[in-house]
């Protein structure tokens, strides 16, 4: 059990590409932490640098109270699950799980027992003699998990743990993983490109872009108050409305409509300055009657989301989206008004969140 700390961590590749740009991060002991971001943002590089597979060009990695920056991967007391699980195809499940103990020179009988114990805990007891090639994707994942559990390492690192599973299985695995981590209480860092996955599983997360951390926070924080327009646009299964606007006294002129200044930005705005107005489609209330402070336009598209609908309004020539509960969805061509929630709408100045 250990906290992980990054101090000014930098990684520059030989070609001059900066993969990690002076990152500072503290992950407390026992936390389930997500590294989230688009392809190429550096999240996997960061994970590999924590593991020791990549050497840092600057800064430090501290695990527990130990500065492990110069320490070999095998001696950092971390365990890693790779995206393709990397189960050794020529060993059976039991030997795979016992492998880390074999390296630690644990006696054969002891490590077989331990493998059996861990395997049973994850429901693998009837599969111990099989080869990885004979297992399903979900079973392979559990073997990979059993293997890291057998190490009793201070921290676990998962590289895209759910990407190799098919969609249905992924949702079950999400719940399973979160429960498992809670039971084990081991500090876990996992990498994902799927924001829904990060929101669902993590205690806290870091949203990364091009080698920088753009925001660190709990899922609620990152969802409700994204620190900049990048995070705002990246998080959320339905993209946040980010609309250009201008401050006009104590209102905002957005897409040709007048909306009220959100509570979060009250009193901080100067008249006439350009801003970006952000509000999630889920935080809009929809009506067919005109409402003051709402964005009005013609319904262009209605998408069925299951228990709700995503309505796209053309406000002037700007598309604005709102989520409408089932039963009250409009038809294309009708006029509609989307009223943003004052306590959930946000204002961005130069890409950064404006706070009161």
């Amino acid at each position, binding site marked *: 059990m250990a906290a992980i700390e990054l101090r000014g961590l930098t990684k520059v*590749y030989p070609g001059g*590409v900066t*993969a990690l740009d002076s990152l500072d991060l503290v992950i407390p002991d026992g936390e389930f932490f997500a590294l989230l*971001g*688009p*392809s*190429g943002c550096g999240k*996997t*590089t960061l994970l*590999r640098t924590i593991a020791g*597979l*990549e*050497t840092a060009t600057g800064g430090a990695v501290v695990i527990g109270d130990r500065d492990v920056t110069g320490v*070999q*991967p*095998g001696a950092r007391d971390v365990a890693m699950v790779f995206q393709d699980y990397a189960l050794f195809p020529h060993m059976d499940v039991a030997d795979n799980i016992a492998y880390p103990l074999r390296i630690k020179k644990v006696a054969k009988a002891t490590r077989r027992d331990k493998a059996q114990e861990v395997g049973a805990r994850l429901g693998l007891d009837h599969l111990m003699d099989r080869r990885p090639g004979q297992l399903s994707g979900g079973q392979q994942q559990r073997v990979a998990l059993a293997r890291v559990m057998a190490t009793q390492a201070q921290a676990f690192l998962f590289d*895209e743990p759910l*990407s190799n599973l098919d969609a249905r299985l992924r949702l079950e695995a999400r719940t399973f993983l979160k429960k498992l981590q809670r039971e084990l209480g081991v500090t876990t860092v996992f990498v994902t*490109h*799927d*924001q*829904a996955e990060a929101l669902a599983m993590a205690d806290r997360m870091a949203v990364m872009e091009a080698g920088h951390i753009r925001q660190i926070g709990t899922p609620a924080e990152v969802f409700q108050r994204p620190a900049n327009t990048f995070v705002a*646009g*990246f998080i*959320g*299964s*339905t*993209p946040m409305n980010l609309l250009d606007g201008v401050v006009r006294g104590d209102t905002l002129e957005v897409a040709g409509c007048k909306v009220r200044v959100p509570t979060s930005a009250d009193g901080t705005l100067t008249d006439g300055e350009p801003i970006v107005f952000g509000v999630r489609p889920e935080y809009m209330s929809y009506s067919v009657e005109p409402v003051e402070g709402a964005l009005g336009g013609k319904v262009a598209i209605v*998408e069925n*989301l*299951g228990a709700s609908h*995503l309505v796209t309004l053309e406000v002037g020539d700007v598309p604005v989206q709102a989520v409408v509960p089932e039963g009250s969805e409009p038809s294309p061509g009708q006029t509609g008004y989307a009223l943003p929630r004052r306590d959930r709408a946000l204002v961005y100045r130069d890409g950064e969140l404006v706070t009161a």
Partner: protein
Amino acid sequence: MAQATSPPEVVRDATARRYSSDAAGLGRLRAGAFVAPAMVLIAVFLVFPALWVIYLGLTNYRLTGVEAAEPRVVGLDNFVKALSDPTFWNSTWLTVQFVLGSAVIGQVVLGFTIAWLLRDRRGPLKRIVEGLVILAWILPSAVVSFLWVALLDRDGGTLNTLLGIPGFAWLLDHPMLSIIVFNTWRGTAFSMMLYGAALGNVPPSHLESARLAGASGWQQLRDVVFPHIRGHILTNLLLISLWTFNDFTPFMLTAGGPDGKSEVLAVYVYNVALKGGQLGYGAAVSTVILLINLVVAVFYLRLLRSKK
């Protein structure tokens, strides 16, 4: 539910090349130690003799006579002699024919055809055909050359019996054709296996899209398959061209004859150096052959790099 996530790491290949490739943590020192034993052996038993051959080419060393005991350095005399010797050029031209005919055309076309024909099959037919082709490659050269001597024999040979033309002397009248067909037969297996593996890597979805767009078999080959395996074709061509260029086996069928009509370069060197005893000159010719190989290799590598 509309997912506003970024696409998964399909750029895995590009990014994978950025990560450290030293997966086991060997480090340069240990890697050097791993490579060292092989390099020592190569240095002693390959590089050193090869360099010596180049040196010998600069002397007038002979097997017998004064020059055997006291060879002198004669500079580039041997090279000049080689380049002005019509026999040498004859051999070079014959070798080019040999390589083009049996390797570039013969083995590649045949190997690819077989790989293509059998690409979707799994059963005994595939195993039998592949087995026979590989057999032709695996059997020792001394044996297969003799099998072809027997096949092409003017009186009792099976070929003449089948074609009904007893007395037709293939090896005497058509030596180049004989050795070209022989080498094609012998070497097809390598190309067949390579193309078989390469074809296996062509995504079936690409072929299917082409088929649905109305492409004929030939068009599918041209537009989907060839672009995918272009790199493999070039590597394959490079290896077999070099191997064929230096191949001595035609000697076992025709001994370079009759009258030097099938005297490819490897046989020419043998005749000049061992039968004629002119080792210095023979070494010079070997060096020229090496230079030609180098030119061919560089040519292929340029092609490979440009296609990427």
